[in-house]
């Protein structure tokens, strides 16, 4: 296994935590892992992104240029990363904040993560919804691994928090596994893409 992930969005969206979550999942399944945030603390509503590499072998470069999986949180992120997508890239887009489809290559899955989180009255969990989408869509890690990691990362917080997060996670998985829902979103979004491909 050699999974190169980029997660991109804006400060406050939980981009780095999502990266950490995936990294921990990798570790839990016995992989080598590196996690690299966007450099330093850009506090002023700027970009936020991170590279996560999960591999069976020693990892040399923790920086990912052409990801195997790309998780995009918002429009700016999509603009910024559209060129890092290759034919082999699998893209997960948060359609709640990406209205204008600019990623024209790669395989793609769409999920209105922010809307899902908002509907749970837990807007901060959009990243966990994205995590669920990642687990559901790629199948690279066991769902139970994800749940275990979540438990560890929320250690010390009350059980309510844990359950809410778990819910967000499974909502993400559920959404992505429901072909109808995904297709519903993806159909419209990908029309242009399909046209181009032809």
């Amino acid at each position, binding site marked *: 296994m050699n999974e190169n992930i980029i997660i991109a969005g804006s400060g406050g969206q939980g981009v780095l935590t999502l990266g950490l979550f995936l990294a921990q999942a990798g570790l839990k399944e016995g992989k080598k892992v590196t996690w690299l945030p966007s450099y330093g*603390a850009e*506090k*002023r*509503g*700027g970009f936020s992104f991170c590279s996560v590499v999960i591999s069976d072998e020693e990892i040399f470069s923790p920086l990912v240029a052409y990801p195997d999986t790309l998780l995009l949180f918002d429009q700016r992120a999509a603009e910024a990363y559209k060129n890092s997508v290759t034919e082999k890239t699998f893209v997960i887009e948060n359609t709640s904040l990406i209205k204008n489809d600019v990623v024209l290559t790669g395989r793609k899955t769409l999920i209105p993560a922010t809307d899902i989180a908002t509907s749970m009255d837990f807007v901060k969990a959009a990243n966990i919804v994205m995590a669920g989408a990642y687990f559901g869509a790629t199948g690279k890690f066991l769902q139970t691994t994800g749940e275990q990691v979540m438990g560890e990362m929320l250690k010390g917080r009350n059980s309510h928090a844990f359950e809410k997060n778990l819910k967000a996670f499974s909502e993400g998985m559920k959404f992505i596994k429901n072909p109808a829902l995904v297709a519903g979103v993806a159909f419209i979004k990908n029309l242009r893409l399909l046209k181009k491909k032809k």
Partner: protein
Amino acid sequence: MKEKVLYKRPVALSEKPFSYCPGCTHSTIHKLIAEIVDELGIREKTIGVAPVGCAVFAYDFWNFDVTEAAHGRAPVVATAIKRIMPEKVVFSYQGDGDLASIGMAEIIHTANRGENLTVIFINNTNYGMTGGQMAPTTLAKQVTTTSPLGRDVKTSGYPIRMSELLLPLQGVKYIERVKATDAISIIRTKKAIKKAFMNQITHVGFSFIEVLSNCPTNWKKDPVESNKWVDETMAEFFQIGKIKDIQ
């Protein structure tokens, strides 16, 4: 119906949107400075010196000449500029980490020399840009990323009141502490900053305006709550008002 414009974006601001966090006082004060520059008609002779801190990008937002000093050194950069071109309007704009921590010697010596400058001091009780560490202005017991249990005055000392510290220096002509938490206080603040600029233009000398400011992001409070905290907690320790005024 005809429309009369009562408020519009000042010309001395560039088109670029502020990169500061929503509700941040930096934006408000940037805007006020631009308004004042417009009102005094000095855009073509104003030179700003930006600090290292969140406002390091100030040059992107003001449409007059701006340079950027090394961390803490803005007042001495401004001094050199003003000495060479005494007819220009020169000001430095600095955060509390910049001015009250690493730049302590620079601000005191500049004030003491009585340079005919304006200094705008944005006190938000922490190092905004680097992620909210404790500053010399952090309140007692305030939690920051480097005072996880709250500022312990026994080891870190009490917050420094810069305006009071500069008071005894004979070169200093005008000091006022203001805030910018609502329209009324913003109007007062504008008056103070304008006076500080006027002091320079009329050769009165060194003026220092301390603005009690928020930092919603690092305080982990929304802008409205942040301003409330400024009004209720910060302004209790840092008393608002005119501290020195010599004409």
